[in-house]
């Protein structure tokens, strides 16, 4: 979908300062006092449930104790050695369904440890100082691995391989690295240029080169690569935005929510961005929630998120739904889009009420119309099948074994493009780590 111009009635726009404030850190960093107090609350549990709930298994009690003993650098090392993107994860992880949900103090005191904030407290200074010397590279192995996609999965794999002494060549379709850290995560989670600085830190280990504007299936091809390098890792995420397939989808003002967020993330001046007065967001996942909140914070008069099932079935967590509500987003459930109306530009949208019967979603025939001058579509992304060649897929994702290897020998994959768990940054990082281990083993380096 191409981006279409939207009329903005100038009077109702928010001031540039207000917009800057709206996109400030959602959770500001802890000061020393807060970090110290929070760290001292942690019980230093044994076989801690929070660690088990972290997809990258960061030793949480250990790093929190390190903060408590004043060893912040050690804390950062503990975090980053398990999760090289611990900085982004501290900002973006839905901890309410991960570590913090399982923290024993959620049970004991109805108030879990603020693990993500402590994690950020430890990691940020290290990223700011670009102290890549936290990790040392093993002696060079002379092996080269090609990585497709410089998102969290690709970069995590690249870093681990570089530490193990391998040479890594990354091919990235876009002009910047970071994947959705750079283009997709909500702006109020990833303020300033953190995503870029984190990538710089990751690359600081050495042994990793990146070629930009090089896409698999367009500029590089799997068979060619396999001849040149010793192994390949694919971390291309999910490139295709699903479309609604209803009439009116090509009207001006109808846009893919991911593109809307990417434009927002890349905008030098957010107040120059176009935003509708009556915005409808279609979808029930995190992307829909993020798009809705950011539309509101950009100054839309009303934002209505419409989901065809109930709130309980939403992919977005309860915490995220609450965040949307406190930002003034209206959540409309049990409604499915029928068509988008307007001459050249969207004017309204027609929906039909739905209901659940015996586990089946049924249309009720009960239709209604909502006015809109902007529609953001966030009904999921899927794998770009046409570039996959002989790679086997399962349920629309690349099929891999326990070591991250695909059906093609020496070709590994991870991140959103495989079905490893939830599509989360932290899972992508873990996938990259597992594949790096698998590749190292495949290349004869043994188990690490």
């Amino acid at each position, binding site marked *: 979908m191409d981006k279409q111009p939207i009329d903005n009635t100038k009077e109702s726009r928010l001031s540039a300062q207000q917009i800057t404030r709206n996109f400030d850190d959602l959770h500001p960093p802890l000061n020393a*006092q807060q970090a110290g107090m929070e760290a001292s609350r942690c019980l230093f549990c044994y076989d801690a449930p929070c660690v088990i709930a972290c997809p990258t*298994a960061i030793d949480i009690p250990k790093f929190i104790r390190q903060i408590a*003993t004043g*060893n912040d650098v050690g804390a950062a090392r503990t975090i980053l050695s398990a999760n090289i993107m611990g900085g982004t994860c501290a900002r973006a992880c839905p901890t309410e369904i991960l570590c913090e949900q399982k923290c024993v103090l959620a049970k004991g005191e109805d108030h879990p440890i603020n693990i993500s904030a402590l994690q950020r407290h430890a990691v940020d200074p290290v990223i700011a100082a670009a102290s890549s010397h936290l990790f040392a590279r093993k002696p060079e192995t002379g092996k080269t691995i090609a990585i497709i996609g410089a998102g969290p999965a690709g970069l995590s794999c690249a870093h681990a391989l570089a530490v193990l002494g391998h040479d890594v060549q990354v091919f990235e379709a876009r002009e910047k690295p970071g994947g959705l850290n750079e283009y997709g995560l909500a702006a109020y989670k990833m303020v300033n240029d953190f995503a870029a600085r984190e990538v710089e830190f990751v690359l600081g280990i050495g042994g990793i080169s990146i070629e930009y504007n090089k896409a698999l299936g367009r500029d590089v091809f799997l068979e060619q690569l396999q001849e040149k390098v010793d192994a390949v890792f694919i971390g291309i995420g999910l490139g295709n935005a699903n479309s609604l397939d209803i009439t009116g989808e090509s009207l001006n003002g109808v846009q893919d929510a991911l593109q809307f967020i990417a434009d927002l993330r890349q905008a030098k001046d957010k107040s120059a961005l176009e935003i509708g007065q009556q915005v409808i967001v279609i979808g029930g996942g995190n992307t829909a929630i993020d798009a809705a909140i950011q539309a509101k914070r950009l100054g839309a008069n009303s934002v209505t998120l419409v989901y065809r099932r109930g709130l309980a079935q939403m992919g977005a967590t309860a915490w995220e739904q609450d965040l949307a509500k406190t930002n003034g987003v209206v959540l409309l459930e049990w409604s499915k889009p029928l068509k988008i109306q307007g001459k050249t530009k969207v004017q309204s949208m027609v929906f039909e009420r739905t209901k659940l019967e015996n586990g089946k979603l049924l249309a009720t025939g009960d239709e209604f119309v909502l006015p809109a001058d902007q529609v953001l579509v966030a009904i999921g992304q899927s794998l770009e099948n046409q570039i996959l060649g002989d790679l086997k897929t399962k349920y629309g994702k690349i099929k891999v074994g326990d070591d991250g290897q695909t059906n093609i020998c020496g070709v590994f994959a991870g991140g959103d493009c495989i079905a490893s768990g939830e599509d989360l940054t932290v899972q992508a990082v873990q996938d990259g780590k597992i594949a790096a*281990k698998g590749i190292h083993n495949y290349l004869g380096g043994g188990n690490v």
Partner: protein
Amino acid sequence: MAKSQLKASIIIWGAEMSDLGCTIAGIETINPFWLASAPPTDKQYNVERAFAAGWGGVVWKTLGEDPPVVNVTSRYGVHKDMARGILGMNNIELISDRPLEVNLREIEQVRKNYPDRVIIGSMMAPVEEELWKELAIKIANSGVHGIELNLGCPHGMCERGMGSAIGQVPELVQNTTRWVREAVDIPVFTKLTPNTTDILLPAEAALAGGADAVALINTVNSVIGVDLDQMAPKPVLDGKGTHGGYCGSAVKPIALHMVAEIARNAATKDLDISAIGGITTWRDAAEFIALGANALQVCTAAMLYGFRIIEDLNDGLSDFMDEKGYRNISDFRGMAVPNTVNWNDLNMNYDLKAKIDQQTCIECGRCHIACEDTSHQAILMQVQADGSRKFSVIDDECVGCNLCQMVCPVPECITMEPVDNALPYVTWPDHPKNTMKSAE
């Protein structure tokens, strides 16, 4: 042992660490952290878990002649802060309650399984030369790197004429040390009790007896609390309680002082020191080393958190050394000793004033009331038109005592600022107000 539910963690890379290896009494250890003689070192199972976790050495739980002692149940009492933090604990346990042979065979086995780790055999016996010598030889034959004399246990054993009953009499300290020194040719550590008025007396006695090192402190005699329902000291056993040995964070200041005294005393300054007492974090460890410790022992912290605290002890100490540019422990060992002086050597002209950072002050009033009620009435509280309160220091009244800074809940909010008064370094013996000053 129950298996952890944790998925095998995949941590592919390690980081470089400063060299934590060091030497005490001629014994090389991969890091300065040993577990002190106590329940954590009671048997092979515990000790091997400790070594697997990364501890450099252990001092085996104190061994005595058979038949082994019998322990009571209800053994520990606790001293907590008002949250859940443990300040210290005490115990009324005796020495090893397992047969000597069992202990010795286990020591032999662990020595084989972990050849790069240190095992010191701790021992105690009634004050009879033959008994000390026989036991020391048996323990030495199990392959330990050294022998530690437990002259410190302040409960139970002392009622049988052992432990602190020996440690409190310098002559007995010297004799027992000499007996062991004569009986074996491995390094001898004399473990001192803090339950004495001047630690230098037993330390010098240990030196005279031929000790290669002193280990201190053992536990501090204490009653940890009183059960007000049962009207008996804790821990209460069937309605009665007794005094026990206090240890943990709370005893660290006592131990630091005693270590410093030995390190700066002309007669004992070359004696190696195995420092013990409340070591919980890498920072505690660094402080003991700065005051002259060659190596360290830990008991309570391991009992409260498990052996895994070794990770932060190692890692934190190594990071500290990196930051300061110390390549190994000896680079900073004893660096604080020359700066530990008598009161009479302090500069009477040094002047400090408290300073309150108005930006970070949260107006709790703690500094004011502390100074107003109990110190020098040097913090002014002014209620502002909007009801907020402003706290400021009256420089002329402030004696620089640090009390307000200590009670302030906000880090760095109150700082103690040196006054540049351009006055020379003058000690009390030379001070004009000193009427006892020797006439020149």
